[in-house]
């Protein structure tokens, strides 16, 4: 019997806001313990939460980008449970009225080859709601310390329907979701900083069945690759259990990405009773059409829509678009350069290959790059006009990258200008033809390769500064006459 996997993901995304969810204390990462706190974060007696509008703006934006239905009223509930990383021992969250319902994430599965677009699919969402993050426990010997810097950071929980069918789909889902969040300026989604966290609910069933098997929750999936590997591992494990006549036990398992193994954290736990009730400290907030419209106006084109447009509008290859599109700024950079030079394919090549290579080597981000779209466009034009040769162009690019000079300035300073005096070129070509009558007759007799015999002398005469393409054209023209 063959089995199919049924996977649902719960993804937590920290919103990129200046301050925390319910107070003005700054949100941030990597600062000394308990410095991003105030009386509200620490839940000192008498303190009250006040909603951060920026966080609400961002979840609404996420909901709009994902095609969710946005609730008319934003309502808050308390989720009551005791844990030392939770300052109030309740978490302000959204229980029965999540801000966003439905919606979907478009994903791209791996294609048959690197340069071929893979199948696209939509993963439906159940809901997205907003809550506050908790602090962090640091366990030492005989003592545990709590750092509340993270506590109160706005956190969005995105719950997918159990419609993911493979580890690859889960990987594609998280990749697409992350790209979209970064595109919308909603989150930086840095998993190492805990800005994106994922738990997976996994079960298997006989292929074609419509009932659900016993699910296992997989935790600690702290990179997108680990999510894929952990799910693949869990699906294999469950299949092996079932095929050997056993039953899958409902439990929570901890996946170790380093060793590729998992172990049970707790078996079917006692159902938590979170005693949800509406938070009396926070008034429900109406999300009016004007508010939504204002946010909609700031929504960017979705990444996959943009990729389709780039393919069509600029005829750039799929491989180039799949490099340019996931990074919104890089895509903008490309479109600006393409607009300035009118040669999108050449601009795309320079950006996707040379620029990214140099940025990577120098460990510099695009926003700090000295090369701007106008530089790339200028360089493309110089090559196109034959003003410089492609070898020289590579040198010009690296020079621009380090100095930020205009390409024309680099060419002038380094004397890289191609020989373009047509009079000289014609004379050198005529001399080379006159000096080699045998090759002339070979060429005229149909031996195409005979043309190469003239090129060496021409290049020597030009001291290497002649454009091979133009030399080729000139020789053919003279020989044809």
């Amino acid at each position, binding site marked *: 019997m063959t089995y199919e996997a049924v996977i649902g993901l719960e993804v937590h995304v920290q919103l990129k806001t200046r301050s925390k969810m319910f107070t003005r204390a700054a949100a941030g990462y990597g600062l000394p313990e308990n410095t991003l706190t105030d009386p509200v974060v620490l839940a000192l007696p008498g303190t*009250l939460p006040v909603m951060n509008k920026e966080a609400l703006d961002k979840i609404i934006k996420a909901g709009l980008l994902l095609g969710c239905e946005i609730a008319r009223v934003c309502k808050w509930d308390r989720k009551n449970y005791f844990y030392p990383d939770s300052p109030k021992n*309740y978490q302000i969250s959204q229980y029965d009225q999540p801000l966003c319902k439905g919606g979907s994430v478009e994903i791209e599965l791996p294609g048959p080859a690197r340069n071929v677009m893979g199948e696209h699919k939509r993963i439906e969402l159940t809901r997205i709601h907003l809550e506050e993050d908790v602090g962090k426990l640091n366990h030492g010997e005989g003592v*545990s310390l709590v750092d509340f810097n993270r506590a109160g950071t706005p956190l969005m929980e995105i719950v997918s329907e159990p419609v993911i069918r493979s580890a690859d789909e889960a990987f594609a889902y998280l990749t697409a979701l992350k790209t979209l969040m970064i595109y919308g300026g909603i989150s930086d989604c840095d998993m190492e900083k805990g800005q994106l966290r994922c738990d997976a609910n996994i079960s298997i069933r006989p292929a074609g069945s419509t009932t659900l098997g016993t699910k296992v929750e997989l935790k600690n999936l702290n990179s997108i690759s680990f999510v894929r590997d952990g799910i693949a591992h869990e699906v294999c494990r469950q299949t092996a259990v079932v095929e050997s006549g056993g039953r899958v036990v409902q439990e929570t398992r901890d996946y170790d990405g380093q060793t590729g193994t998992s172990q049970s954290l707790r078996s079917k736990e006692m159902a938590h009773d979170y*005693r*949800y*009730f509406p938070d*009396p400290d926070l008034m429900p907030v109406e999300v009016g059409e004007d508010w939504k419209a204002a946010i909609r106006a700031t929504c960017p084109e979705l990444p996959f829509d943009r990729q389709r447009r780039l393919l069509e509008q600029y005829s750039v290859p799929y491989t180039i678009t799949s490099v340019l599109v996931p990074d919104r700024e890089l895509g903008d950079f490309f479109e600006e350069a393409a607009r300035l030079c009118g040669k999108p394919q050449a601009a795309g090549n320079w950006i996707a290959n040379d620029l990214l290579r140099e940025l990577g080597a120098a460990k510099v981000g695009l926003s700090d790059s000295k090369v701007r779209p106008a530089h790339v466009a200028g360089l493309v034009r110089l090559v196109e006009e034959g003003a410089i040769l492609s070898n020289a162009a590579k040198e010009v690019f690296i020079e621009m990258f380090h100095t930020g000079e205009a390409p024309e300035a680099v060419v002038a300073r380094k004397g890289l200008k191609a020989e373009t005096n047509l009079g000289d070129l014609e004379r050198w070509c005529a001399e080379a033809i006159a000096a080699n009558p045998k090759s002339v007759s070979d060429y005229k007799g149909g031996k195409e390769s005979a043309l190469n015999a003239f090129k060496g002398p021409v290049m020597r005469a030009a001291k290497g500064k002649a454009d091979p393409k133009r030399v080729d054209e000139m020789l053919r023209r003279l020989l044809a006459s």
Partner: protein
Amino acid sequence: MAAGEVSSLELMASVIARTRAVDGRVQAFNSFDAEGALAQARASDARRARAKAAGSPVGPLEGIPVGIKDVISVAGQPLTASSRMLKDFVSPYDATVTRKLKEAGAICWGRLNLDEFAMGSSTENSAFRVTSNPWDLERVPGGSSGGSAAAVAAGEAIAALGSDTGGSIRQPAALCNLVGLKPSYGRVSRYGLIAFASSLDQIGPFARSVEDAALVLRAIAGHDPKDSTSLKMEVPDYLGGIEALRRSGRPWKLGIPKEYFGEGLDPEIGAAVQGAIDAYRGMGCEIREVSLPHTRYAIGAYYIIATAECSSNLARFDGVRYGHRSKDAKDALDLYFKSRAEGFGPEVKRRIILGTYVLSSGYYDAYYLRAQKVRTLIRRDFLEAYKQVDAIVTPTSPTPAFKKGEKAADPLAMYLSDIYTIGVNLAGLPGVSIPCGFTKGGLPIGLQVIGQPFKETELLAIAGAYEAGADWLGRHPTL
């Protein structure tokens, strides 16, 4: 003080002297900082002198010592909620009302005793002391703001702040011959008030006259960006408004709810309240009987909503960040169990357990949700009545001050102490208790006037109209 006859320093010094003289018997204060208060008084005198030199006016609260219930935060001062849990806790920030009082020039004076976490009606639930009623030291001052009431009644403060969740300002005011005002829910910021039941709690003043209460309310009211349940609404000049209404000679229409005069009402209180109603009639007010049919469900709904909210609000007291931490805890769970077992008193535990129960899965709909529906009906009763009348007049408390220990062992009897006051909290209305007589035994009796949402001016004008024709406030306890 405006005439320069008395300085704030002299006033403060005399209040301190009075406190030192009588508080051994009254036990209204958990603590006070005499030096700090004197320093504030000196600063106030300096401000007054500067203002005088500049020809600019000072506010009416300039240099006035206002006592603060020990559940409202004052930066740098203890904030105990009269609980072992916060016995050594010093709050690092000012509540919004505290900040506003300071900005108005008032002196935040002392930390006044209460039932632990404001849960109780006698102030006997304090972990530290049992406050006495200045009118009879054998008796309770009411609660939970019993320390605030006793301090003002005994002359240990000119006015005081309390908090009222189910009657915790009005009932002790009634038992101590004071004016005690619970403003409309959302009129005064709760930021810095240790939450008992967030949807019911409201801070308000104790004072020796309606006028003083109006002045304190004016200072503390208003929208606060730190409390999203505080309403964005202009704060009127209450005193000016009251005076304008008095001059207009408008005859008030007052409602008498029959449900508030039934079984359990002490006959002497019934008679005194009837006397007040007659006085209103004598002034030309129209008296109408009204019905608040859901009144009998109020106590049940109240104890579900209040305990549910408190079970969650008090979860933060866990011994991890501040407050009492058990020395014997072995792990995190044990730390919670032991710290909370040692830190909370029996009434607080009872309410946390009750609240946890009513919110539990499977019970939520039957209790919490139903209680919220009852709450809506109770509010509707009042709003229906206000189509006919301007305000509603009732007794504040079914009994006068009772003896210490008399109801301490019977929580239900104690809960009934708030039977006339909790509807006001459930409905979010403003309510004031004003003195309306004494029992034969010399115990004060309070009259409750219940107003329409955010119409504190009218409410205080109506209360003031009775006060002007009565002399109960002229009486003082002998200590």
